[in-house]
């Protein structure tokens, strides 16, 4: 009986020692990580429109069937062109029939403002984030159409599936207070500054 007690207390001693070591290891890892890289800020994923090469993967790689990436129109940059490189297929007639539109889902609405200006509005319900219009606008226009991750749709995955397959490393984590990188904003900031 005494021997059993001895064995038990020895086992307890070892158990306590290992538990203390493991506990310290976990807490230590936490403290190390906290000190090294946590800055108390939270991050969300966003596309840098200046790095984006409009490869079209945003439409297919998002874990959501309907991508959280949508086209955003930075009106500040728009030239309100009649012949919009983002709206019409290259070489198409200036008629708004679907066969002339670049957007595969007809998500860009064109509205006459005054001679010779037209306003282009993205219908996000229809937009699939394929970047076809972005490519056209960047190639022939001012580049006011560009992709952004919409945070009402984004699930903020631990690892953004699009960021892994993005060929130009345009998707990174940004601070949650400034969750968008909309092109026009940069100009506004410059003007304010």
């Amino acid at each position, binding site marked *: 009986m005494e021997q059993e007690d001895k064995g038990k207390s020895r086992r307890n001693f070892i158990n306590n020692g290992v538990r203390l070591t493991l*506990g310290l290891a976990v807490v230590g890892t936490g403290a190390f*990580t906290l000190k090294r*890289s946590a800055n108390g800020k*939270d991050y969300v994923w966003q596309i840098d429109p200046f790095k984006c090469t409009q490869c079209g993967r945003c439409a297919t790689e998002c874990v959501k069937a309907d991508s959280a990436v949508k086209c955003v129109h930075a009106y500040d940059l728009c030239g309100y062109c009649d012949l919009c490189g983002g709206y019409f297929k290259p070489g198409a007639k200036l008629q708004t029939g679907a066969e002339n539109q670049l957007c595969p889902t007809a998500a860009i609405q064109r509205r006459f403002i005054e001679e010779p200006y037209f306003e282009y509005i993205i219908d996000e319900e229809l937009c699939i984030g394929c970047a076809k219009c972005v490519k056209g606008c960047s190639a022939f226009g001012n580049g006011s159409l560009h992709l952004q991750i919409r945070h009402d749709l984004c699930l903020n995955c631990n690892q953004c599936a699009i960021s892994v397959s993005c060929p130009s490393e345009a998707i990174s984590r940004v601070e949650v207070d400034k969750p968008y990188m909309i092109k026009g904003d940069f100009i506004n900031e*410059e003007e304010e500054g």
Partner: protein
Amino acid sequence: MFKRIPSFALVILLMSLLTSNLVQAQQRFPKPEFDTGYVQPSPTQPEPRAMAMEYFDVFVLFLVLSLASWLAIRKRSRRGLLWLSIFSLIYFGFYRDGCICSIGAIQNVALSIFDPTYAISITALLFFIMPLLFALFFGRVFCASACPLGAIQDLIVINPISIPSWVRKTLGFIPVIYLGISVLLAATGSDFLICRYDPFVGIFRMDGPFLMIFLGITFLLLGMFYARPYCRVFCPYGVLLSWMSRFSKWHLSITPSECIKCKLCKDSCPFDAIEVPVEQTYRAPEVSRKNLRRFIMYIVLIPVLTILGGWIGTKSHVFLSRVHPNVYLAELMISQPELRADEENLDIQAFLESGDTFEQLVDEATVIREKFRKGGWYLGGFIGLALGITLMNQVVFRRREDYEPHKGDCFSCGRCMDYCPVEK
């Protein structure tokens, strides 16, 4: 303001300088002056989910873990644990869309340890640490009630079959390898393997790529017969929890008082996590001598396996490093230079457009490959060491008088408590 956060201001300034150049280059058509009083709309910016809610998630996890510990150890209520796990399934699974979870948080922690530029969110860190600390004191209560992946599998256990011990133990070694590889890939910034192959997140979101949904349904179908297949055969976080739980201060006990060795609990456990009593009987000297010899052999084998594993790990670093997109791209461009002209190859085209030189890419890939060469030693060594210790544990003889849960494997689900006929 500029004094207080100079670096921030500098970044903004740099950014505006940088971007204004680009913008000027693109501003082919000037912004029109409208005569008709047209008011220019501004793009909408829907806000992300309030971050205060993330701290609320941490709070919920803490509450669930505390409650689960109480239910498993004090209240001894299988029903309570079951309802709590359903709550977790609904909250962390379906409502929070399965992200963030403690299993995936391993990678955030690994990455932040090896990459100082990566800022880990406090939420992820707490999700990683809290269940481990709870396991150190109360066993794997996280698996019982807080893990949505565990909960969804636990609910569909219909006709669990008992698996021979050697198959179980061999399969049970896969999570160790999976843990090692995913930590290596996360630490080198290559990929978050655990998140990519999370089988149930697609089901939680009712949406996802084909592979995700396919994996999820396969696991659920399998789980009707082989209970909790993901937890037992893949879950890398389970490895860490199992280490902690083996030395836990308190742990769920099957019977409230004296065990009557009725064997009911053994039949009730779908995970074969209950160990049968081992009588200390007289054993012939040659048997115990043989056991001792095996024990010594395994002890000697541990360093051998560790070094051998490390060697194999580092030998396979070229293969492993291909997971990193930059290494892959550099290799592709070296082996098939004709692809540079291929308009269809988006990765190469995007790289050529980016303005980086090919030498830069190769240098970068070399640095990453060097990390893998070093990491290969750690990965292989870790797997070898774990294998050695597992083997050694096979011949360690422990006396047990009662039916007891295996503290490492037991998920603290509480089925056995329910089945135990002994009254308090």
